[in-house]
């Protein structure tokens, strides 16, 4: 299984969710699935997302998921506060970054 923790407007993916409680969606694990694949499975696109995490580490769209992963999904307007998003190279603000530090 994958344990998805949803935040901001993405909480709407779970009926009856409230911001004062953890909103968790459990999904079956698919062998070899990338983060991008998971996003497609949810009916979302990468542009719907801000900074997202797998087991507390910032995720890249090509990251391959493992069974039991904890995935933190944040929407497009929820990111780490300091700018420099291009340093992450995940296409959040710039898809054609000069240097992908990721």
């Amino acid at each position, binding site marked *: 299984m994958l344990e998805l*923790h949803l*935040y*901001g*407007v993405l909480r709407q993916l779970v009926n009856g969710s*409230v*911001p*004062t*409680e*953890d*909103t968790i969606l459990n999904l079956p694990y698919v062998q070899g699935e990338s983060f991008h694949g998971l996003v497609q499975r949810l009916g979302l696109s990468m542009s719907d997302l*801000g*900074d997202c*995490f797998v*087991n*507390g*580490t*910032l995720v890249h769209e090509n990251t391959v998921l493992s069974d039991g992963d904890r995935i*933190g999904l*944040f929407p*497009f*307007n*929820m*990111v*780490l*506060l*300091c*700018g*420099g*998003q*291009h*340093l*992450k190279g995940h296409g959040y*603000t*710039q898809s054609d970054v000069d240097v*992908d*530090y*990721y």
Partner: protein
Amino acid sequence: MSRLLRIDMSSLSHKWMDVPSKYSDFAGRAFTSSVLSDEVDPTCDPLREGNKIVISPGLLAGTSAPSSGRLSIGAKSPLTGGIKESNAGGLTGTRLGQLGIRGIIIEGMPPAGTTDWYSIYISKDKCEIFKSNEWAGIGLYELIKKIWDKYPGRPGVIGCGIAGQRLHIGAGIFGNNMENSDPGRFAGRGGLGAVMGSKRIIAIISDGRGGEGPKPKDKERFDRGRKALTEALQNHPVTGRLTDDEGKPFGGLANYGTNILQNIISEAGGLPTHGFRDGRFKGAAKISGEAVHELVDKTREKFGDAAEGKYGHPCHPGCVMACSNVVPYEDTGKLQVGPLEYESAWALGANLDIDSLHDVAELNRLCNDLGLDTIETGNTLAMMMEGGLLEFGDGPGAIAALKEAYDPKSPIGRLICSGTLIAGRTLGVTRIPVVKGQALPAYDPRPIRGIGVTYATTPMGADHTAGYTIAAEILGVKGKISDPRDLKKADLSRAFQATTAYIDSVGYCLFIAFAILDNDDGFQGMVDTVNGFLGKEIDVTEYGLAVIKKEREFNRRAGFTEKDDRLPEFFRTEPLPPHNVTFDVTDEELDAVFKDL
């Protein structure tokens, strides 16, 4: 034409002066740190006559540049023993800008044994220093109301509360918000409220009516920059407007405030929880910016126009990001505290294992009323929990303890106001999260090492705003070859610290970082506003490094050495879950940050 105001509290006199040419490009932090460096003996006792308080609006305060009304307050810090600049929003930066005041230098102090208290009123035509004994010892909510009742014209108000008046070094300098409903615009850090108390000053009231305000030398360039920066800010999904063209939630800060970070940093495993013992807080959602947003909507629905909760609230006139908020009481809809910032919600919440939004907001309200820095106070309460005087997670117990601070005879109350280091030492705690005597804020330096380098090396004591390397460094929890941990921490921290010193000086809010780092047009817009205002070219990094150089030199003369640029031992020896990492940046790398400066 900008001018200076020099106030001598020994003779209760003042004089107006032209800005000396050596300070012509300086405002905000550049001005406060330069004056302190030039005029204050670094070895002086910060709470005696030799110290000075320097107040300076940013260079662009009072202009139409977006989000540019921040205020700097500087002094030798009684908390760190070094130079300090603390920065806040509120009304005063704009009001002083409107009056064309580049800086206020307050020196001397009334003779020993004086029991009188004073306040200062500044307007277009006068500066008046007057006795205000009736304002001593009262809570700051009551004080700001009395001042606005006495002075029409919606003046800016800054000053110190009960804690500062008693010379407690956990005290910050408060400011009123734009509606004067809350004294929560704090230049909180460094114990500067105690310095103001040592001068026997309760409040400084600035009335901007009739002032002409500063004029840019190259108006065309200034306006071009202003428009570019505004556009970059408003169209960025983090700093942008509350809703998009279809009415859907857009700007992250406008919707959730700075406390948007509670969930994000917790999910990243870098949220200091239970006194820096865990990196993830189970109760984060309950005290998050999202929870505040929902509470505001709920009380609006229930109480209609009588509801006082807000999000998308500007912290100073002309701020287009509007990341401030007002937390309402759930049962009445009336204001509880405004704002509840991320740092405060962390210090008084996750840090103490308290997951009740009501209790966290109430602790923040008490800090605001007493005139205490929330970060220092939250960490001090954590020391009391570590030391066995309180239980972790006990919100009502923490509230009761903090209320003791109103009683001047309560030892517990005085301990709470005395800062993290003193409380920790007093209670036999060995895990005391301070650098240069100042408590750490809301990013654990073990998984977020770049901010740890900033905590260690900034002249300000542990301070996240001194060089905010979070985005670049949060990735450092990974462990592969392409990992940004391979980036030179020293270079990263130095670059961020220099840029920050520039932004603190020109008066912009630090959160314009999104628009200037993510958007080249936004960066050029910022530069154009500053250079258009001054009518000359200023190099961002050189300007910032020059400020830091003065600050470090002040600290060196005060007795600081490289040994002071270190984190407490437990960050090196106790791995932090969930990543189970320690702070492993070497001393050599820390010393390299400013080695050649």
